[in-house]
């Protein structure tokens, strides 16, 4: 019931719709009980029939029956619309909120929750909550109501002695239902586990198919799989066996009840204390008691599942924003400075970044190089405020800490191209215009030209309208990177950040793009001398850094070398050695 307390806000907001649905349910329950009663009465009038032809009363009863049938039908259709519609609205509401919460989270959140789990929460878990708010309410209310009404009719209207005797098997049915549904619940969980084991095994075997084939493991892999599949079949069988119990339980209990009804009823009829019509009515009522017995077990199950699911959804909804967005300053000066910046990942032992200092005046280019795992991407994530170190005054934009600016204002300054370019399931044009959906086609094409991707795009059959992303065309790594660069350029943000964004592009294209960028930078700075555009370029390939005003070499989180390209190659450090290596490699590839 804790679930309903948690969802109280929703029930309160929608109390009118719930009330209407429940009133309709009540009407349906009452009217449904009238039908057996009408049938019984009609039988009794027929049994006492004398004379020729059917009486007006007979036709009247039939007419009532028809009217009742249609009324019940309409009410049933209506409450379904209302009740299920409302619970679907709850689902929509939760899903929207969930999505909005996601847009407020930083990289720490996304690296500690895997996508599959988040998606399960947004879909399957919300489904379970919906089910509880829709069918849970239904089965609880309707089951209880039908149960009470049927008992009242049996005891008060027909014969309490008959009712007391005939109902004896029903508690047994309730207990049996409860136990069966419990057993199924556990067995079902086991079946799910077995299924997921089967899934894992299949995944493992197929991703290691080369080894399987090379070692001739086909037979032994199949044997392992067969065993798991048999286990899955066995647990499925258990579930099926428990489910198969429902039928005989209902059947036997009902048989006993009918037997008791006929015996006791017959005796009462013989003593003229009961009519045949009433006996028929009573038998029909017995059938209506099955649903309430079933509903209670069903309700417990739905609510249990709904509660667990809601907890998982709510956990995400109440998670506070990872990055506090309370800045108020506006950006006026684009110089970026790091003062002894250090950062350690939560739970990490060693600092990922250690005592990093640099100054990037506006209009300049900062190059960053260094071996993998040196902390280059972490540095960018801190600059973008995707992550945050405990001390917030180590990174400054225009002499103010980054947190002094609203996130929107801050990120508006950066044209960021991540290491792994990400394309959304949209057209190429929409992907480039992501930051500015209102950009004209000329602007989009201009950005594509600067990123040296325009010619490639024109070669596709649908040109700029070609759909990309998961369901669209597959682009090569280099094409994806260049698209992401075009996207960043179109945003018009003054500070360009390339996080190894040219790694999949060949050297010629790389030089072409770098030249375009330099041109553009000069052009922009001429136009707007007060806020000159600057750039941070991370690259594995050192040729992309040659023109940078300053280059930092990061190794194991700290700055091991710094200077201009020509200065650095004169030393015998990592940079100079790497430079030689890359030149040697180029002769191999030529």
């Amino acid at each position: 019931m804790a679930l309903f307390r948690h969802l109280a806000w929703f029930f309160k907001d929608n109390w009118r719709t719930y009330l209407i649905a429940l009133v309709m349910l009540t009407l349906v329950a009452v009217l449904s009980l009238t039908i057996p009663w009408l049938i019984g009465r009609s039988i009794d009038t027929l049994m006492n029939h004398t004379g020729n032809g059917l009486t007006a009363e007979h036709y009247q009863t039939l007419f009532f029956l028809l009217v009742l049938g249609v009324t019940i039908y309409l009410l049933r259709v209506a409450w379904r619309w209302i009740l299920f519609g409302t619970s679907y609205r709850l689902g929509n509401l939760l899903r929207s909120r969930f999505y909005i919460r996601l847009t407020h989270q930083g990289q720490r959140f996304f690296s500690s929750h895997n996508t599959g789990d988040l998606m399960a929460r947004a879909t399957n878990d919300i489904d379970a909550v919906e089910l509880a708010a829709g069918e849970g309410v239904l089965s609880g209310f309707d089951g209880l109501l039908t149960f009470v009404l049927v008992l009242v009719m049996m005891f008060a209207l027909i014969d309490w002695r008959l009712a007391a005797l005939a109902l004896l098997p029903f508690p047994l049915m309730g207990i049996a239902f409860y136990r069966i549904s419990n057993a199924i619940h556990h067995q079902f969980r086991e079946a799910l586990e077995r299924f997921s084991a089967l899934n894992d095994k299949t995944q493992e075997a197929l991703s290691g198919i080369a080894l399987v084939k090379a070692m001739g493991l086909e037979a032994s892999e199949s044997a392992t799989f067969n065993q798991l599949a048999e286990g899955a079949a066995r647990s499925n069988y258990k579930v099926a066996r428990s489910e198969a119990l429902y039928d005989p339980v209902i059947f036997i209990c009902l048989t006993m009840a009918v037997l008791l009804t006929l015996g006791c009823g017959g005796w009462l009829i013989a003593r003229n204390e009961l009519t045949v019509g009433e006996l028929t009515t009573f038998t029909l009522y017995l059938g209506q008691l099955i649903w309430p017995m079933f509903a209670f077990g069903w309700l417990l199950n739905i609510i249990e599942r709904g509660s667990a699911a809601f907890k998982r959804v709510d956990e995400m909804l109440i998670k506070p924003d990872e990055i506090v967005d309370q800045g108020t300053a506006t950006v006026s000066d684009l110089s970026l400075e790091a003062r002894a910046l250090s950062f350690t990942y939560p739970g990490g032992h060693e600092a990922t970044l250690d005592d990093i200092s640099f100054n990037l005046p506006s209009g300049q280019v900062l190059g960053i190089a260094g071996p993998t795992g040196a902390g280059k991407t972490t540095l960018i994530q801190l600059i973008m405020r995707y992550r945050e170190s405990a001390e917030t005054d180590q990174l400054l934009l225009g002499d103010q800490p980054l947190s002094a600016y609203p996130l929107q204002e801050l990120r508006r300054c950066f044209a960021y191209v991540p290491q792994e370019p990400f394309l959304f399931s949209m057209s190429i044009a929409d992907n480039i215009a992501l930051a500015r959906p209102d950009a004209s086609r000329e602007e989009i094409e201009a950005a594509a030209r600067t990123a040296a991707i325009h010619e490639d795009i024109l070669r596709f059959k649908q040109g700029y309208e070609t759909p990309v992303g998961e369901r669209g065309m597959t682009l090569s790594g280099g094409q994806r990177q260049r698209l992401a660069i075009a996207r960043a350029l179109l945003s018009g943000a003054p500070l360009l950040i390339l996080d190894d964004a040219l790694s999949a592009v060949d050297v010629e294209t790389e030089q072409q793009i770098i030249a375009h960028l330099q041109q553009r930078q000069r052009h922009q700075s001429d136009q707007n001398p007060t806020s000159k555009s600057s750039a941070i370029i991370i690259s594995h390939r050192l040729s992309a850094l040659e023109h940078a005003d300053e280059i930092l070499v990061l190794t194991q989180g700290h700055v091991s070398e710094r200077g201009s390209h020509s200065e650095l190659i004169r030393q015998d450090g990592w940079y100079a050695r790497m430079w030689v290596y890359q030149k040697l490699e180029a002769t191999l590839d030529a």
Partner: protein
Amino acid sequence: MHDSTTEATLDKDSRHSAFRLLFDYIHRDRRLLFKAVGFLLLATAADVLGPILAKIFIDDYLMQNNFAVAPLAGLLVAYLVSQLLAAWLRYHQTLKFTDMALAAVLDIRQRVFAHVLKVPMRYFDHAITGQLVSRITNDTEAIKDLYVQFLSVVLSNVILLIGIIIAMALLDVQLMLIALTLIPTIIAVIYIYQRLSGAAVARTRQLRSDINAQISESIAGMDVIQAVNQQQRFTERFEQLNGHYYKARMRTVKVGAALLRPAIDLISVLVIAGILHLFGTQVVMGVAEIGVLYAFINYLGRFTEPLAEITQRFNLYQQAIVAGGRVHTLLQEPQEHYPDSSLAIDHGSLALTNLDFSFEADKPAIKNLSVTIPAGQFYAIAGHTGSGKSTLLKLILNFYQPQSGKICIDDRPLAEYGHEALRLGIGFIPQEPFIMSGTIHDNIDMGRHLPREQIEAAARKAHLDRFIEAMPEGYDTYLGERGTRLSAGQRQQLIIARALAAAPRILLLDEATANVDSETEQVVQRALNDLRGEVTLIVVAHRLSTIRDADQILVLSQGELVEMGSHKELMTHPKGRYQKMYRLQKQAEKVEKAAH
């Protein structure tokens, strides 16, 4: 236009074969089938007998005020026995059908898994693993749902309906005919429902998968969305989709509410009214028996339930047929074929002549490559990224067949060797050491059921024996997934032992590309030196230091063999490719040093 028609016929074909695949199983175990059907028929007969007995009680005894003890007791016993028997038989019939269904699905599952493992390697280049896994597990699960439901629910409900109709006919044909109108009416309603809801249900499913896709895409691209400050726009986009989903679902609820349960109940009320009316006219004519009406009303209560159940299984049926079609297609995928020969690899000499191979036309991966490797020699393959060295290894492993040219082992073409001969004669050490969760013994044996001595000998050769014997449980020590109890070097040793356990004549080693610590590198070095002369060694080297001692080094560039010789010989060519690679590697080491 033309495309869509062929697709449609294909679809029909695969539908048909999916159907055959599924229903072949039903009469596979005839005895079980007969038993189950027999149980079902008996259960139904016993079941419908109940209301008839009640009718006899009402008409012949109650209404006649005849309370003779003996016949009444007889009726009571008959009633009890028939109903308990019906319950018992029905339960067992359900279990029998479930048994059949699960056995069938188990068999399909095992068949499709075994089949996929034997599909040629080429297939896996383009297959998406996630999708294949889904064929083997999710799709067979959908088939299971259909089977269990279809056999135990649909079939038994159809038989129950027939039983009820027969019982009704025995009681009163006229009344039965009125009740019978229920069936065509409900079939019509279901048909209309299918027509109206089909599109809505499909749309709901589509939108749901769109929602999934959009969430997963947004999670993956959240940094980009945040970088360009488009959270608001993406939220609106999601809400729009969410709204469409709501509308589509409401459509299915509306259609379902109007045509399923409530409609079926309404129709049954109408039929009861009809029966009451007809009964009324019978009363007027003086031929009515009240017990008949009682029995009919009882039957009608049972009548609607099976129909409603059958309706609800329709969607399952459609899903299962689609899933079955996909599984069937997968089962049709041709398997790789090995000859049935007793030829064994005795020496391990290799001869490659004029090999040509390409994954895609016009992009040759191996060009006109010829080389002869005498048994027991240590040959290394070197080359820059993309030079074709791993591809050459895959050709020797018979994962792919060359477009032209020939690979011979001990002077016999590769294609003449059976599966067994190849897997015993050729050992393979892949780049990524794969440790399964199991004991050390299991990890060396890998399901080949090798004798214990052979496993211990292999561990000795890999210098792992002392370590294993020092463990409290020795060879039976349990290793968790990915073998986290072992160091990187020990994992490598274990893989070497595994490859050596079957005493292969040829050992292929694909050296790890990733950074390997010096311990691991030494392990590999030492093992290779020990094996010299015992087996033919072919090593794809990414670090040239591993192969300094090789008898011959083959240097590949863009699929061609450009240089060949020992390390010393190759180093004497001042402009040679090997020499350049060597210098590059030395430089890489220097870079590496500067990074620490």
